[in-house]
């Protein structure tokens, strides 16, 4: 029985993304060590682990921010050549970084379109069209948002977050990476992000959700993968494991029976 055929949750056929045997080291430290994870269309996969477990590093390989030392990335079953963020965007991979990665000194519209500016027929920036579109998008995402003329530095955490989210979903992403999307948010905004994830999932977008919060992952994800010391402890369907078992995976690296063990799982004595 292949691993693919055990995948559950409406995910079938060729995975949208396959990360296979990905390794990356910084100096002598193996931040990610032969990690393999996959993601299907319309599926949310939660990536869990302690600080420094390698989850952010792993997805930064996918988003093009880091270049892997070895391993393969396949999109729609085809080998993908991702060596910088531009390559990743060309494959429809969008990322909401934990730091939000906003240019603080420019306004919301400039951030929304950073790297993909709308231009007039003379090739100049079409700021007015960008602002108009930004007003439309933000009106849907965060109706209270009014401060279009101000640098994003002066916005609140939630407002900044919505700019980062708008940027990730505005350009027809197929694969969305969310790195701690709710870390800086209040309860109400967190609930909004949760709704948004469900909407995007329904549209067939594949989502990697990185989180510290095990409850978030159980609420939102279809499957989860746990990392420890750069290695995958195991992957599991959320229905097949309990929160306590997942905590065991995160803390001890112990793979429960409901999960498929990875190279990072400790061997039972």
């Amino acid at each position, binding site marked *: 029985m292949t691993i693919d055929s055990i995948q559950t949750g409406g995910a079938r056929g060729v995975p949208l993304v396959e990360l296979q045997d990905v390794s990356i080291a910084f100096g002598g430290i193996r931040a990610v060590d032969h990690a393999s994870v996959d993601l299907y269309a319309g599926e949310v996969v939660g990536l869990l682990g302690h600080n420094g477990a390698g989850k952010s590093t792993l997805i930064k390989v996918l988003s093009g921010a880091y270049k892997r030392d070895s391993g393969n990335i396949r999109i729609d079953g085809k080998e993908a050549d991702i060596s910088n963020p531009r390559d990743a965007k060309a494959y429809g991979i969008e990322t909401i970084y934990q*730091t939000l990665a906003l*240019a*603080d*000194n*420019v306004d919301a519209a400039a951030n929304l379109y*950073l790297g993909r500016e709308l231009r007039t027929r003379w090739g*100049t920036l079409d700021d007015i069209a960008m602002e108009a579109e930004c007003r439309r998008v933000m009106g849907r995402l965060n109706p209270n948002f*009014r401060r279009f003329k101000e640098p994003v530095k002066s916005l609140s955490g939630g407002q900044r977050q919505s700019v980062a989210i708008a940027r990730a979903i505005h350009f027809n992403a197929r694969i969305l990476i969310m790195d701690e999307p709710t870390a800086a948010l209040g309860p109400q905004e967190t609930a909004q992000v949760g709704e948004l994830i469900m909407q995007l999932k329904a549209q067939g977008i594949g989502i990697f959700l990185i989180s510290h919060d095990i409850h978030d992952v159980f609420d939102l994800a279809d499957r989860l993968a746990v990392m420890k010391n750069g290695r995958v402890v195991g992957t599991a369907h959320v229905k097949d494991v309990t929160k306590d078992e997942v905590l065991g995976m995160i803390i001890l690296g112990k793979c429960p029976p409901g999960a498929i063990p990875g190279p990072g799982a400790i061997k039972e004595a």
Partner: protein
Amino acid sequence: MGWGMAEQSNAGGPASSNEGLFRRLLRAAEIDTRMLGMLAALLLIWVGFDVMSAILRPGGGGLFGGSFLTSRNLWILLVQTSVIAVMTTGMVLVIVLRQIDLSVGSMLSVVAVATGVLQVFELGPTLGVGHPAIWIIAVIFAIALGAAIGMFNGVLIAYGQIPSFIVTLGGLIAFSGAAFLIASGVTVAPMDKTFKLIGGNGPLASIGPMWSWVLAAVACVGIGIATLSGRRRRLKFSFAPKPVWADVLTVVVGCAAVLGTTAVVNSYLWPARVAERFAVENNIPIPAGVENRAGLAICTAGDKVVTCLDGLSFQTGYPIPVLIMLAVGLVMTFVARRTRFGRYIFATGGNPEAAELAGVNTKRLTVMVFTLMGALVGISAIIASARLDAATTALGTLNELYVIAAAVIGGTSLAGGIGTIYGAIVGALLMQSLQSGMALLNVDSAYTNIVVGIVLVLAVFVDQAYRRRVK
């Protein structure tokens, strides 16, 4: 009741109601209040110098009786500003990108000397002295050489990952040595006669009153069209345009500034000797008149040519280096505000990592910005050597510091991400005003340096205090 009302209207909009009417008007018109403060400071300095020079030496003919606010001094001030101002527009982008270029002064020397050697020792003998192609080749060569040196800096910084401070500090030292070697330690002179005009030398180096007015008219129409099209585009996407009075004010003030400047440069007349020589050479009859020592025109009295009130005079109009400065300012403003390249520079300066993650090729961007800086140094080298009619290895000495100071006085933040081209040009003008004003008052240049240094530090202090209050 007052406070309750105030709080309610606070909730209604971003503009807090306890700010003054004036401030609200400025906000509605989207006027840069910081810029307004700088212009006020500039005006204060100008008036101050005129009044002081009036006290020291009355009868200078200036607005307040001194010799600073005279058309002659203002005309010269603009010409003197152009070398630094052209480079400052590039330095703004370099600093906005969180980099620095300490090598521009030495680079100016090396480009000027190489271009001088090219025209004096190579093109002159080969093509014949005064050949019309010489100045064109020299100009292209200077800009290309500047761009090449800038690109070299940029590649070391972006791909060699050496801090720009170090790369350009090395350049500051190395390029001045290179300039000395190229010139073999001597002053290279004289420049080609057409090339010389770029420096603003002689009567033909200005475009005259008629073309100056034509230019002013074009600029006025341009301001009008730009304002109108901005208005129309905002309406098209149905969000509120600026209030009508604000747009009208922009056009009126802009136009008045253009016309006023034009009137000033046009009212600067050729010096009597230059006018006389020109009249004789071109067989222009000099009218008879009565000698008047305060007069600026020329007349014949008997067989002598004297100065008089009514007689033959020539208006200068805009000098070529000032036109170059204005053109560079316009183009660079366009580049910074309306192009993707400019947007990337600001975004990268604000958060380099975010720009990289958003797909901006920040390494290539760095190389491009330093290349542009180099090309602008090339233009400044042309103006500086043409103005001096000679290329020396000391031509650009200390220019890097003046350029950086002008950019900083003009509101460019060394932390990156913030700065404007027009601010930097006004900064350059402000610094040059201090220097030539104090020269006019016969202040020792040692004191001048002390004052300029203090003003630089003070400007940044005031600026930061202002920004904290605005926050």
